[in-house]
């Protein structure tokens, strides 16, 4: 299967699966560990991937949330994520995709401008979160947020759906592309 579709498998009971896509394995690993350490009533599964498409020989459950991790220090991660986006079905973007930009704290090391990432998130109508994954406390907080988002996207929270969450997370100010 070359394209990820959100609803092509039945959900497992009480199980929520998140897919983290990014180039830097160390960061993804740390984030995954922080997420698994969160207390959550549902059972969490974290899958890590460097790029899409995923190999089709593995039997994996239905993916509820995809988090694309972009490191602002390296343009390679941005290009990688842009390539991966074409392997995701468009119905995923109704709230089940999230962009995570890391490394914005050290401005002097950034080779990708924040505007670029903001425009990318705006084009795909998905929420963009900024977090410095190297710092322990920020990572833990972000893991909590992601776990909560994952629960909503997997349908474990009655009354809120992924689309609902998406419209809640919409930015109220106009994006920079309109301003300039």
């Amino acid at each position: 299967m070359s394209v990820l579709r959100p609803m092509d498998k039945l959900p497992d009971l009480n199980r929520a699966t998140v897919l983290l896509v990014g180039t830097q394995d160390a960061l993804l690993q740390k984030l995954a560990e922080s997420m698994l350490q969160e207390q959550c009533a549902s059972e969490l599964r974290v899958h890590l991937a460097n790029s899409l498409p995923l190999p089709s020989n593995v039997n994996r459950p239905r993916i509820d949330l995809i988090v694309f991790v972009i490191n602002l220090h390296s343009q390679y991660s941005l290009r990688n994520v842009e390539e991966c986006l074409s392997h995701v079905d468009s119905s995923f973007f109704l709230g089940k995709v999230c962009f995570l930009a890391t490394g914005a704290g050290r401005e002097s090391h950034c080779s990708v401008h924040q505007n670029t990432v903001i425009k990318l998130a705006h084009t795909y109508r998905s929420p963009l979160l900024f977090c410095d994954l190297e710092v322990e406390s920020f990572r833990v907080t972000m893991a909590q947020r992601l776990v909560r988002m994952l629960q909503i996207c997997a349908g474990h929270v009655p009354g809120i759906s992924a689309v609902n969450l998406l419209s809640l997370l919409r930015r109220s100010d106009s994006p920079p592309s309109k301003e300039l």
Partner: protein
Amino acid sequence: MASAMEQQGEKPAAGAEDCGEVRDEPQAAGESIEDRIRLLLRLRAQTKQQLLEYKSMIDASEEKTPEQIMQEKQIEVKIEDLENEIEDVKSSFEVKSLALNRMKLSAALTNNIEKMGTESSVLTDDMKHIIKLHKLIMKSQEESSELEEKLLGIRKKRLQLKQTSRSKLLEIQTEKSKQKKDLDNMENSEVIKTMQKKLQMEIKITTVIQHVFQGLILGSKTNWAEDSALREIVLQLEKDLTTI
């Protein structure tokens, strides 16, 4: 959300084969019936939510999507419109549910009060307190509006006073300037000029006469210093008339 916190890693302890089965975990051997019921209820809520999502997906895919190729800008505008529609629907839903809740609350209150009758209870006490506070609020609002009006009146008066004082000062200023102008005019008037000319003429004539007399006295070669009367006359003739 149920209070039973289960922490699972990537390897689940046991898979669930069908919906109704309860998990059998080694550490939850001493689980009470309530925990199991809670788990079941939670699973039920989950399944409901997931079913709702699938249903909505099916409904959405039944809708015909426009097949024509639209420009990117148009697509953006359309997406914005759709997102705003979602927002509107959500907010109207919230508002309606708020209204419903309020109605439910008031209905429950009235029922409760009917049941209790006129005996004092916490609810009636609260309501009486609320009514008292409302009256207090209204009274203080009235007072504050009165005070504001008074303040406004005083401010108006002050403004008036300022304006009148300003006009008075302006009048004074114009009067002064008029006076000054009159003075200047007077000084420059013709009458004074002719008078000044005549004065000059007279002074000249008198000076000439003085010199003539001087000449007469000196020319007569009398010793005017001895005679006191002549001396007085000569000294008087020395006076310069322009300095008078």
